[in-house]
């Protein structure tokens, strides 16, 4: 609505013409100027400018809804209450039913921890028929690291839903619903994002996976400080994609090394901390998410995958519906599986740390039965 034309807003002709004559055509142009600037530019009095701005604002402002209406709409219009179940019972109940529609969910963890495995499983689940608890829709999978493996995905399917995949041609049908894009550069990625916007609505797409977001950025701009910048547009765009097509969006993020932990303090904290030397000031393998703090603010749900002394954990590090909990998991031939549906609650900085020690191999073949 920001690009709505002023000439079509029903302002009195006299003032509308003044706006047009000064090349202030859209609401964005008008509202980006202060009232005083407008008075100077349009050469009219304060009263006229305020009336015009009030009028434009009222039209541009999106309609309001009550929270009750939102709740009712969500329950009525959306299958499964607007969640994609992950089939990991503990995680599903913590998330009120699964990966929610309309928001961005992030998976972050060290290499080889199972992020791609989780994405593959989610893609498969979204493409399953409704009777099997899927979403019966297409999936767009943007694979920037060339890690997508159809064979592995079908293997997960065969092992988790043997009865379904025994049906002739089912594997083909399920896999045929998953559209994989492999952009090689950030520019190419931006282009494909633009294109899929229309595609999402036309083709009954039920899930968008981006694996991974960080690869593109770290590939193109090596210097740490510019890292936040090139993604500025993408963050807002991906969020609005999720919002308007009402589908879950899952994005993976890599980790990088970080020396020291000084950036996690406010200036007013520093004094008290330096007196309090019991805090370990540096960790040897201190990992942080590759995309910076501005990206972390943008995601609505953050799942951290990590391994501590050989055991893998999936942690719900950021969520507005659940306390932070950690679940031990393993990856078998049937995909990611929780070892325990009762999560361990975490507190403090533990929630956001990412450990990456003592893991071996992505898929654990020993535990299969």
């Amino acid at each position: 609505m920001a690009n709505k034309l002023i000439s079509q807003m029903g302002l009195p002709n006299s003032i509308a013409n003044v706006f047009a004559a000064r090349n202030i055509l859209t609401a964005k142009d008008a509202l980006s100027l202060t009232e005083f600037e407008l008075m100077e530019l349009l050469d009219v009095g304060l009263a006229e400018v305020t009336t015009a701005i009030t009028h434009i604002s009222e039209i541009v402002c999106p309609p309001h809804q009550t929270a009750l209406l939102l709740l009712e709409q969500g329950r009525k219009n959306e299958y499964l209450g607007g969640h994609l179940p992950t089939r990991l019972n503990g995680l599903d109940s913590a998330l009120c039913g699964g990966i929610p529609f309309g928001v961005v969910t992030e998976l972050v963890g060290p290499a080889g921890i199972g992020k791609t495995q989780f994405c593959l499983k989610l893609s498969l689940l979204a493409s399953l028929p409704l009777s099997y608890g899927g979403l019966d829709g297409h999936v767009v999978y943007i694979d920037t690291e060339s890690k997508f493996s159809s064979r592995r995905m079908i293997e997960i399917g065969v092992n988790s839903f043997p009865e379904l995949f025994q049906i002739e041609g089912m594997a083909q049908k399920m896999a045929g619903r998953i559209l994989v894009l492999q952009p090689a550069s950030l520019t190419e990625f931006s282009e494909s994002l633009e294109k899929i916007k229309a595609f999402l609505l036309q083709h009954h797409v039920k899930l968008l996976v981006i694996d991974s977001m960080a690869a593109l950025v770290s590939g193109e701009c090596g210097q740490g400080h510019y890292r936040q910048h090139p993604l500025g547009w993408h963050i807002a765009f991906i969020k609005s994609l999720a919002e308007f097509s009402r589908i879950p969006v899952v994005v993976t993020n890599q980790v990088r090394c970080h020396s020291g932990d000084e950036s996690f303090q406010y200036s007013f904290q520093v004094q008290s901390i330096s007196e309090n030397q019991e805090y370990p000031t540096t960790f040897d393998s201190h990992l942080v998410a590759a995309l910076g703090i501005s990206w972390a603010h943008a995601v609505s749900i953050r799942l951290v995958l990590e391994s501590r002394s050989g055991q893998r954990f999936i942690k719900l590090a950021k969520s507005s519906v659940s306390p932070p909990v950690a679940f031990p998991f393993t990856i078998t031939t049937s995909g990611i599986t929780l070892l325990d549906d009762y999560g361990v609650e975490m507190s403090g900085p533990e929630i956001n740390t990412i450990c990456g020690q003592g893991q071996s191999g992505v898929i654990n073949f020993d535990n299969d039965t």
Partner: protein
Amino acid sequence: MEVRSLPISASQSAKLISAGYTSLSSLSSVLPSHLAQELGISENEAIGILKVASQRGGVEITNQTHPTIVNGAQTAWDMLHEEESCGHITTSCADLDDILGGGISCKEVTEIGGVPGIGKTQFGIQLAVNVQIPSKYGGLEGKAVYIDTEGSFMVERVSQIAEACVKDMQEYDSFLRKDLPADQVKLQPYDFLANIFYFRICSYTEQIAVINYLEKFISEHKDVKVVIVDSITFHFRQDFEDMALRTRLLGGMALKLMKLAKKFSLAVILLNQVTSKYSGGSFQLTLALGDSWSHACTNRIILYWNGNERYAYIDKSPSIRSASAPYAVTGRGIRNSASKCKRVKMM
């Protein structure tokens, strides 16, 4: 007072000055037709200018007769009374309410910032629910406007918090009002949801528009007592080339919000993100949007991790001292820190 300062268009004031009308007093006895002729403008325009001038002039005249009573000013004594009468919205965390002097105060703009996942949105939702607590339970019995720029507002969570709030009120009834068995809590969780007006904002233009529009909206919905912007930062952080423009727009927005807070005596809560800033040889966390923005809010609360506990720190306030208090985000919403009242595990 000079003609230059009149809220009229630039060309009109230029014409006035070139015709020799530089001060307001020189305009006081001019006839509209005379002025129109002299400036070469229409008579209607001339009447408009004189009207504006006489309104401005009026203020000055009263100044001279009653030197103490300037139009629109109040004595500090009156303000004290007003401050005492205006309400507070409880945060549901008693420790934090204590250091805030009873909760988030109305008529003020309060900024709350912190790292991702610390509970900013939780605070926003909690306040949107708490503002509706009926006056017999010490609440404001108001409604809430929630402006969501990030899409992080979760209705499921609102209904959880609203349910917990209703339960708290029922408990209060059963403990303290045994003599009034008939007086049941009439509010249902769904009533809470129906009193939260939700705006979803998708660009910074819409954000400016909604804040301009709020004045009209709130004069139609007089019982709105809190406006929550979650977050003020998001759209201004993405894709903004012209930093000077950003500062101007944010400044204008802050002024409008402040005016709104005063005019309708409501609380304005702005949620802000954090960024890292290089100072004194190391990176430090600080709230986003830069130094000039930090002047815009009356109060500033920073949420941070202290060991294993979440703390809220009052970074800036004109009336209360800087202090910090622990809080916890529980299944029922924001509560006192877990070390004091152990919460029941959710699963």
